């Protein structure tokens, strides 16, 4: 894998929650198709606010927009729970019944590729 090695976690945000019933909207897209990184990590990646990053795990790859969150320690990225994060999460629960939504090894790199809209992202599962 190319790019910086990180740990990926997912979770709720208030704006994500406000749009639980409106997931096809711009507001949801702007909040959830996002990777939150510590500012130092962004510097290392040469990524500025609103740049796109490619996040890759052993299970898939996804393009999301970068946002700064210095609450994250270095090496920890946070993608809000939702379709973009789930594009790189494994469906194998190792018999525990629970997928690994948090604590997934990933790499992050700057990219010029575009972020897929929700419907486009769903269509990638139909190929």
């Amino acid at each position, binding site marked *: 894998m190319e790019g910086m090695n990180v740990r990926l976690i997912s979770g709720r945000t208030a704006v994500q*929650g*406000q749009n639980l*019933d409106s997931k096809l909207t711009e507001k949801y897209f702007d909040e959830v198709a996002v990777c939150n990184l510590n500012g130092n990590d962004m510097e290392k990646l040469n990524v500025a606010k609103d740049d796109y990053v490619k996040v890759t795990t052993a299970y898939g790859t996804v393009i999301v927009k970068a946002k700064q969150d210095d609450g994250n320690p270095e090496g920890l990225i946070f993608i809000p729970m*939702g379709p973009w994060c789930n594009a790189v999460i494994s*469906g194998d629960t190792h018999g525990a019944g*629970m997928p690994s*939504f948090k604590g997934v090894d990933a790499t992050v790199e700057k990219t010029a590729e575009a972020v897929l809209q*929700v419907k486009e992202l*769903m269509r990638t*599962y139909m190929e």
Partner: protein
Amino acid sequence: MVEITDVVCSLCGCVCDDIVLEVENNEVVKVKRGACSVGKAKLLGHERIKSPMIRENGELKECSYDEAIKKAAEILYKSRRPLLYGWSSTVCEADKVGVELAEDIGAIIDNTASVCHGPSVLAIQDVGLPSCTLGEVKNRADLVIYWGANPAQAHANHMKRYSYVSKGYWTAEGKKGKKLVVMDVRKTMTSKMADVFVQVKQGKDYQVFSALRAILRGHEDVVPDEVGGVPKAQLLEVASMVKEAKFMMTFFGMGVTHTGARHNNIVNAIQFTRAAHLHTKANIMPLRGHYNVAGINQVCTWETGFPFAIDLSRGYPWYNPGEASATDLLYRADCDSAMIIASDPGAHFPGESLRHLAKIPTIQIDPYANPTTEFADVVIPAAVSGIEAEGNVYRMDNVPIRLRKIIDTDYLPDEEIVERILTEVRALREKEGE
């Protein structure tokens, strides 16, 4: 304009029940007070699915309720291993019909606990759960711990109504008389409020629980200088806060159910609570995400004996989480149809599980279009529970509260939709003379 009080919010597990709404021309026009920003968004409503639809040649085409229900029944009737998934954002009355349907067609019935607090249920099945209702916390707790959770964003009224900011009988001073400890892998809006923020290295919560248990049981000598990224001094500080407390309450979230040791994290969290109980009154509670996920667990349990991932294909209840949980079934391609109700696996399941969902006939029952709609072959729009349909729900502490019906609608409630599908399935069976 009519003002309606004591409205019950139907979004998160807080189930706030003192909401005041303004209704005009059969529409909720204002949320006057009581709701957080997330609840407010729910109550004010969003763009709806306009009509039932059936997918033809890749496109969703509008149809009647009757046609959609008939099509859904056909799919389920013909299916050899149907999955009925979701249930966490509807009322118990609908859940009961769901179990009846699952029993009738030999389906697997599973709910969102599988991707949320399922591990907590597994932990309870190992060690039990020392807990209480939220009013106990409000009235007694002087030490509140949030572990792997960010209520400021996910359960925004929680601290105000039930735990840290709230005022109760022995907690009349509110925040002033209490201590807030937040354990998380990163700083959040919740950790900002904490008296003590403990930053745990991602994936190391299990070790931190163990270390605290050791200290509380008088074995601090075996604890090294750093555990899971946390300095021993800070662990000792938290332990002495526990010992000095009169009533300790721990709330925990996905930060510990989703990572590494999964349900073992929760077992350890509960054992940590028991160790605390040697020094003070100590209870613990999972922060349930949806307003009635606790309810579907309750209904399934009293009706089948088991709380989630129940396989009824043998004609009797079979419980083996990890085998019959929805994501596992989809990952293994071990179901041949799916009815998704009151939930959104399209958004919240790992992508790898969605490949199979894309292949199998899928029915969606929901008021709103969402990523799951892309996979649906039949879409049945439902009334919004708590606004257009009433019914029973269970708050995160298992207190049952009745949602109110605030306005009228032409949309059918979930209970009626599932009831009609069941009736149709039975009619199909009778026709075939089985």
